[in-house]
């Protein structure tokens, strides 16, 4: 961690403002290859390495182990009998996921729900982001604050609010019966429709913010040039605005799509018993069945599904930063 380039080599320090004790310590640390700079890098690096990266290796290890009735409920994947290492790798968990239609269906269903929800969030979020970006100050700040405000209030409570809205004696049904549009309450809670709605609702700010950040940078002169050249508003939108906002669209889409795939709270509270999304399957495998190895295999398979979307997101964000 010490390959200091000339460009950011530390400026020589003045000895006067250093105590002898500190000088001694620094000298010792430098001898083992640790200067102040690498210590600064090491703090966040080591923390994330231990509590973010290693946990995935533990999950991978556990997904290859055999479940057991024990504490913790699995068998070790390696043993040392004094002479050699015995590996007990067990691929049964993955074979089980593949053979049981429940898991495969849950993956396919989760991807579909996340994709459709992200699409609707884009359709609702794009006009809002565009309107906010084109608003004059101080209205722009006010609208932006209004978009962020729900995000600061509890996610769980916002999902709960939709329970009150959607149930058969809920706000929407009461209103529709009162106005005479319907006679019998519509069944909306515990349906897939409620899950789509809940995801679009709770993740909408994640769509609007990157879109706004992109659209606000859009040069007014480009739009004027287009209209001066005779482009009608719609043509200007499709040929100038939309292509230029692609990085924002991709970032917003992925910020909704990726976490939505693993969503647990929304299908649990708004969906029916047969709304099997993969996050919910993992939760029940872990908490109800106490099958830690299968839960780990579910997590590894979910990560594999997420690798490509995460890479697309990183590319979009890098491009947005470069612009």
């Amino acid at each position, binding site marked *: *961690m010490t390959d200091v*380039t000339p*460009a*950011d080599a*530390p*400026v020589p320090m003045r000895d006067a403002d250093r105590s002898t004790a500190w000088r001694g310590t620094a000298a010792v640390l430098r001898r083992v290859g640790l200067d102040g700079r*690498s210590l*600064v*890098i090491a*703090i*966040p*690096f080591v*923390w*994330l390495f231990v*509590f*973010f990266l290693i*946990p995935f290796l533990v*999950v991978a290890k*556990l997904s290859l182990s055999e479940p057991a009735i024990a504490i913790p409920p699995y068998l070790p994947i390696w043993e040392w009998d004094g002479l050699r290492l015995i590996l007990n790798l067990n691929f049964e968990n993955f074979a089980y996921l593949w053979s049981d239609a429940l898991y495969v269906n849950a993956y396919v269903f989760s991807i579909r729900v996340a994709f459709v929800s992200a699409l609707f969030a884009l359709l609702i*979020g794009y*006009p*809002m982001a565009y*309107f906010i970006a084109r608003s004059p100050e101080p209205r722009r*700040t*006010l609208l932006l604050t*209004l978009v962020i*405000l729900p995000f*600061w*209030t*509890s996610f*769980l*409570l*916002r999902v*709960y*609010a939709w329970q*009150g*809205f959607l149930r058969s*004696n809920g*706000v929407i049904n*009461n209103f529709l019966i009162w106005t005479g549009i319907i006679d019998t309450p519509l069944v909306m809670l515990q349906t897939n429709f409620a899950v789509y709605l809940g995801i679009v*609702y709770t993740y909408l700010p994640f769509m609007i913010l990157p879109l706004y950040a992109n659209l606000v940078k859009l040069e007014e002169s480009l739009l004027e040039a287009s209209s001066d050249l005779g482009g009608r*508003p719609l043509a200007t939108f499709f040929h100038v605005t939309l292509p230029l906002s692609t990085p924002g669209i991709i970032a917003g889409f992925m910020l909704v799509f990726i*976490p939505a795939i*693993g969503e*647990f*709270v929304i299908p*649990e*509270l708004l969906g029916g018993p047969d709304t099997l999304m993969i*996050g919910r399957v*993992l*939760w029940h495998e872990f*908490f109800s069945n106490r099958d830690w190895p299968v*839960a*780990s295999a579910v*997590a590894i398979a*979910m990560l594999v599904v*997420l690798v490509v979307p995460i890479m697309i*997101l*990183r590319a979009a*964000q890098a491009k947005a930063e470069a612009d």
Partner: protein
Amino acid sequence: MRAGTVLLIFTILGFVFLYAPILSLIVFSFNESQLVTVWGGFSTKWYSALLEDPQILGSAWISLQVATISATFAVMFGTLAAYVLMRFRRFRTRAVLSVMITAPLVMPEVITGLSLLLLFVSMEQLIGWPAGRGMTTIIIAHITFSMAFVAVVVQSRLSSLDMSLEEAAMDLGARPVRVFFDVTIPVIAPALVAGWLLAFTLSLDDLVVASFVTGPGASTLPMVIFSKVRLGLSPEVNALATIIIAIVAFGVGVATWQMRRAARNAG
């Protein structure tokens, strides 16, 4: 109809969509009736019931402690990560660090929760720490995911910052540590406050990760709310939601007012 009008209507509908459920939550917290969605007259009895519920009060206290401690550490670590990535141009572990600091932003909570729990269990077997699970393990988990959010906030502030101030201090012979504390920190202070508040909110809001890594006796507020909500609608939860929304609205209102005042003074 003009395109601008259509856009305006669309935006208004979007905000109705965002706020209608929250407003109904607030209205029905003042409902006399036990039925959360049928109006039975004005009452504040659910607020008194809430304040006498030891389960809610106890878990709220745990959540506040966890959120305060984890937000403070998340700001320190997240700021360091952001500073290192923005100001140290080249170092060997850069690519790994930049992946590790962005991945938690989109990682599904069930995966973060499960993987951290399995880590804690393995660590306990190997080195005997952490002995059992509870507040400490929740705090570690929350620091880990919220430092990523802090890093994003601080990074965007650092990138919009003119480096000449830091360079001037360096040219005048200030040590890097001194420059960081005397120049960089004061300039990015608003981002640090925003990052702390964000980390605090994320911690206070987290159900899934905490459920995985907690142990007996350490139930956070979202865990108690979730167990109540699972059994059906509860007017007490509406009252709690209203209090939280009031605090957040007040906080955001003050922050916006402060920022506008600062902007006016600067301009």
